[in-house]
């Protein structure tokens, strides 16, 4: 089993919370994990990416090779396209639909979604809206994780345990609303694919 995941977004959007939940979920399940992050200058509103690799055998490289990613999870639609060369032929792209426009030459959104729709395997969703719907507007990244979960060979129970671990310090209410956000994203993706 392996899951090579590209996490993409804009500095400040907190893509690492997705990685943290998966990391907490898998580390003591006898799985190997490597997760390369972006720190430093790019965190000031620049494009950020994290390579997250999970496998049941020791992982060599911290970076995912081109054409080998099983999934791209992007919390911003244009950023989802930036890492397409990493996506494998059978890989899935899961992206938030909500645009983060902080540059003057941001392309027209129709063009972005036009490119996304050219792919065979993709899911696009409004993660912010789904998070608001479950009553925790801050949980949009857990919605994204939920929407990606059908394409990751790790059971939802284990991922939910990881989410609980990441948020446990903030109390039961926060844990539960994040798990709900995860489930809502998962439901959305399951329906989307049908």
């Amino acid at each position, binding site marked *: 089993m392996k899951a090579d995941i590209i996490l993409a977004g*804009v*500095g400040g959007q907190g893509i690492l919370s997705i*990685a943290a939940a998966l*990391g*907490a979920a898998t*580390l*003591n399940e006898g799985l*190997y*994990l*490597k*997760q*390369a*992050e*972006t*720190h*430093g*200058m*790019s*965190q*000031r*509103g*620049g*494009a950020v990416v994290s*390579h997250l690799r999970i496998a049941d055998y020791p*992982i*060599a*490289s*911290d*970076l995912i*090779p*081109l*054409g*080998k990613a099983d999934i791209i999870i992007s919390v911003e639609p*244009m*950023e989802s*396209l*930036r*890492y*397409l*060369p990493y*996506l*494998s*032929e059978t890989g899935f792209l899961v992206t938030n639909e909500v645009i983060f426009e*902080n*540059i*003057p*030459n*941001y*392309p027209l959104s129709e*063009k*972005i979604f036009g*490119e996304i729709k050219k*792919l065979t395997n993709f899911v696009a969703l409004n993660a912010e809206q789904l998070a608001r719907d479950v009553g925790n507007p801050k949980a949009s990244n857990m919605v994204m994780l939920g929407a990606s979960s059908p394409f990751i060979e790790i059971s939802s129970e284990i991922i939910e345990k990881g989410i609980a671990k990441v948020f446990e*310090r*903030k*109390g039961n209410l926060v844990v539960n609303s994040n798990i709900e956000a995860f489930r809502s994203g998962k439901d959305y993706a399951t329906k989307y694919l049908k």
Partner: protein
Amino acid sequence: MRKELLLGAEAVGQAAIDGGISGVYAYPGTPSTEITEYIQANKVAKEKGINSFWSSNEKTAYEEALGMSYAGKRAMVCMKHVGLNVAADAFVNSAITGIRGGLVVTVADDPSMHSSQNEQDSRFYGKFAMIPVLEPSNQQEAYDMVYDGFELSEKTGLPVMLRITTRLAHSRAGVVKKEPKKEDEVSIPENLKQFLLLPAFARKSYVKLLGKQGQLAELAENSSYNQYIEGDDKSLGIICCGIAFNYLNENYIEKKCPYPVLKISQYPLPEKMIRKIEGECDELLVIEEGYPLLEELLKDFFLKGTKVSGRLDGALPRAGELTPDHVGVALGLRPPVEYKIPEIVANRPPSLCQGCGHQDVYQALNEVVADVGEGRVFSDIGCYALGALPPYETINTCVDMGASVTMAKGAADAGLFPVFTVIGDSTFTHSGITGLLDAVNENVNINVIIVDNETVAMTGGQESSALGNLESICLGVGVDPEHLKVVVPLRKNHNQMVSMIREEMGYDGVSVIIARRPCIQKVAREKKKIKAQKES
């Protein structure tokens, strides 16, 4: 065995605690910052009272660590690659004095310049200083190397360099910890002349350092970190340094690499191992993260011997960080790329945060520059360097820590008028104060603007050494109190800032304007912290 998920930088921090340090010394710099932050936040380190305050710069950090080693205790000093330039005087000389308490120097290089002004390779410094250099291929090795590194340092009597790169520092993996070691007791050197580098003593110490080189070579030859992996196909031999070993292995997940492989993670170079692979194989491919240190050494000047490929002959790119794909291409394995980046995807460079005080300073300064002409703003390393990019494009230089003040002085000496300096509070205390003293001593006409956000912002908001002391530092250096002004950079104060800059421009001497407003990220973090405390 329980694994903990740690960044490479955090693994280094944990290993330093477990390895028995009494102090970590550092100035923040990507990708090394998280080492010290990890130790600062660690409960055990706090209980033990391990010294972990930020130093003013890498040179002071290095000397403080050396002082702790002098007093018989183990210490670590960490910095980014360019920080070693700042600490180089202390670094090179500490190899000649030697150490007492184990001293590990962790240097984090930044190939591809993700967050730096160059991509220099610190292994050259290690070779230059003639000390052992360790270059881990993964997080566990980084932990083990530091944990055992203090003993290696004590055994050889030399500082030991751990060279990591951004990818390892900022990548997480499971790490297994070892039994924590006890701290050493404070003591006085047995030889009270050991740390005296007066010529008469230094000559002897230097000869002693030269004499240790055989021992260091022997240690590298027998190091478990250096491995020779046999292969049947001798048409090629592959030498990998540090993390490059992973990129090679990534290309051989399904089948074993057919070629003999030499993995190097401890220097000086294991000469016998290199001779073996050269003797066995027709050609060599050298894969190293950073400069072609090894390749240059092995490449035969008259091109009569074994062909050596790598970054110099284009088998691998000459600049930038390696990837598994680069290594695959060098081995004739093409990546199975299905998709391209669509043309509509625009670059998204970093930018100043909305509401940041630096924006207000640049708006005011741009208004003045529009009158006096472009090309007069000398700046420095920090968030405010983003003022080089649109929409501001205010600043004209960003070279090294503190260079804004001194380059402005040099330009003023050359007859340029007016000249401005934009420097952050922490960069000013790192390396700006001495430059200001030069300017004051000659009463040069420069206009210094210290953009004081009361933190080291770019690296994540560490405590600035300048906190609360900027005015007294400037006055102490000799700035005329009449020409030391403070302003709050806010949009509503725009006109005040513009007239203040214009007024000081008219003064024939050194003027300092402190534009002080806390970093908005810092304020947000503090609010969050208070909220979290209330909740719990």
